[in-house]
């Protein structure tokens, strides 16, 4: 938003595109180039969307779509407090729209098994995959990208209370799933 004070950092570490997930989102300088933003955020957003959508291919397209739109409106988007959150939301909306239009009523955990290649805690992973996408999309931001509740709320354009509610309900559902095992 115009006129707001911004925290401005884009460090070398955050520009790495290896396999690490940062502990917090990158805050973008107002004049940061689109390339730097893309380099800093692309992989993380792609991974987050992969988990949220349960489909790597769809996530790849959605990530591209989000960045394309960000690029088109970079002058404005770059001034947002959290451009990555905007891209995530746009990409998620795009993917959901795509899914609705194509009636791809996929069972998420099956998709995970096929295309994401889940590893690690299988029970928990499957339970995550069975969460409604509304829950999964905030869980990913909160626990994978490790954004604060407020940052998730801003990114998803939701009231903070809604985010907290979704997280709480998601955790309850995950807990129930784990206990039933």
């Amino acid at each position: 938003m115009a006129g707001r004070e911004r925290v401005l950092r884009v460090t070398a570490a955050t520009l790495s595109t290896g396999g690490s997930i940062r502990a917090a989102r990158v805050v973008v300088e107002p004049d940061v180039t689109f390339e730097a933003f893309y380099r800093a955020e692309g992989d993380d957003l792609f991974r987050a969307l992969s988990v949220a959508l349960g489909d790597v291919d769809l996530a790849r397209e959605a990530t591209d779509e989000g960045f394309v739109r960000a690029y088109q409106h970079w002058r404005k988007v770059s001034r947002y407090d959290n451009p990555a959150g905007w891209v995530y939301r746009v990409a998620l909306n795009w993917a959901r729209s795509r899914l609705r239009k194509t009636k791809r009523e996929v069972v998420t955990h099956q998709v995970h098994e096929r295309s994401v290649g889940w590893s690690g805690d299988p029970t928990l992973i499957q339970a995550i995959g069975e969460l409604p996408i509304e829950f999964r999309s905030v869980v990913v931001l909160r626990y994978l990208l490790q954004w604060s509740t407020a940052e998730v709320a801003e990114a998803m354009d939701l009231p903070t209370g809604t985010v907290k509610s979704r997280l709480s309900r998601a955790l309850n559902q995950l807990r129930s799933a784990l206990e039933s095992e």
Partner: protein
Amino acid sequence: MDPELESRLRESLGRHARRLPTLEGSVGDVRRRGRNRRWAVRTAGALGAVAISGAIAISLNRADGGQTVATADGRGDAGDVIGVAPTPTPTVAPTPTPVPVFVPPESEADLVDPPGDVTLLVATGWGSGLVDVFGNVYVPDVCCEDLDLAWYEQDRTQAASGAVRVLDDLRGGLVSASGNSLYWLPADRLGEGAEPVVAAVHVDESDGDGGDDDGDGGGSYELELWDVIELDDRVEVLYSVQKVSADGSEGSALLVGHSLAGGDSEVLARVDWSPDTGPGDVWAGAAWLPEGGWMSLKSNLDRTCEWVEFAGAGADLYSSPHQRPEGDDCPNPSMIAGAVSDEGLVVVSERYLFPEPVLGVYDRAGNRLGDIPLDGTEPGEGHWSELDIVGRDVLVSRGEGMDPTRWPELDETYLIDIETGDARPIPYWGAPSFARTEIAVDQLTAIEPTSPLYFGVETDPAGPEPGPTPDEAATPTPVGTPTTDEVPPETREPTGRLENVLAPGALAGDDGCLGTICLGMPLDEALEAATAAYGAEDTDTPEAELEGTLPPPSDHVFVTDAERVTVTGADGLVTELRSFPLADQASSPLGPLGVGEVLAALGAPAEVFVGDGEGIRALWLLYDTEASLVGYGFVEPIDDDMALGDEALGDGALGDEALGDPPDDRLLPDYDALPVNAYWARPAGTP
């Protein structure tokens, strides 16, 4: 919260994420996006390292329909133009060239009725809906979609067509085929939870298993509905059934006439095939003939390379094999799809035979009357996948291999006039993107305007009011239609139409302005002014939602802020402007969104679309001539570039719980975005 669980989540998600691929290293591909509106270009090893090499190129739509390709690579600043794509062929109403040569004989022409007062039904197998000849889509709340999907679910593996056909002569009865069964739902049983009658079941007695359709170890059935005729004492269905063995080497095909009321079936024709004879015939169309008898269309795949055959039981009908051109190896069937009209006119989608896919038109004796050439693709590639005939029009849908730059509406169907070749797109809604390669249009039929299914919205248990006829819809006279043709924007005066309708509020002043918004102002400027006045912090409107193609002529965009309503005409300029009457806020079904303003400006009946702000769907409202809400539901954008997601209505405001199950798959007109706090609206039945 649960710290232990949260920790476990972080650890598990993080570990998993590290194993996910990255964008970097993706092998280059060029993919069309959003109906070819933009491309994202990847080069090997580029994504994720944008600054290193030509990394991401984005094409931006130009006003003239062309695309400017910009790059965000390391060779210059983001936004450098590296190429300009040519202006594509117009995306709306592509006109095949050259002009078709087909001119039906006068006697034939007399037999074929023009589309006239019909509504078309398109059943996709993944949902269904009613599409009128102008492309308006209506989804009734009484039938079709749920039933179709439910039936489809009965046997997903076998119901290749998912066909459902509305029997217009039965005033809304339905016939559907799934697996090996023919289902019938009489009109008087329509409604939620209705159970169809199993009208016929096909079993293969030759395998000696007592009739179980899987007794041969995995063979499958496929029923295709072709025609229904209502006679004085009975209703007869014409359909084909194919049984294919598990390995596909053997099978049989039947053409069956079935009396729904009497339950009698007659096998009109039968074809068997085996490894010795080749893969056999496939029914591609059939119709009852007005004078009695029937006619069918088959694609013969056997080794004689006959590629299309007409057959009928009438005295003047005969089989008419058509040979491929000499020298053709005929490795594949040439006829992709065909249809037979009620009068025996045959249209065939042909492949390989001609440099470009064409629609061949034949009379019932097999004489080729002419072509409808379609300038659509490279020689030898592409085809029209499904087609049907309605009156003098042929409905086709794009098939695999069609050049998307020439036929950009990937998922859409076209209604092509047989005589003139004029093609107009019927926006195709809700179809899975992959359907274009296989099944895009399964069934098409005409529905009388008096049918309960016509127009799709039924609120009166005693019986629905018939919707407007297409003739009426073809010439709408919306109250709010801007009159911008003759008066330059700078001098345009308020029309006063709103004043005639609404008592409260005030029109623009003598200076043509109301606050910071003035008549003649472009939409984006008006939005900016409205946003600024309302407070940028709260109504930030993404630029993306202000750009792109404005709604087509006769459409209106309504933008409200806290104080004003802005009505924008087809030219994108503000043509109406007035203050926001609080009375209407209170009475509106949408509260502060002021639908009353929209209706007042547009006139009734009208349809109003309100974006959900998430780009997922929009609320659709239908108002009758009394401006009463008679229909509502959710619709999905046909365009990927729907609103990107600002807080127009807030989370959950459009939840299913509040408004009931949506009539899914309604059509939104093709537009780029609904601005925040904006409506898109049109007179009901607007072409």
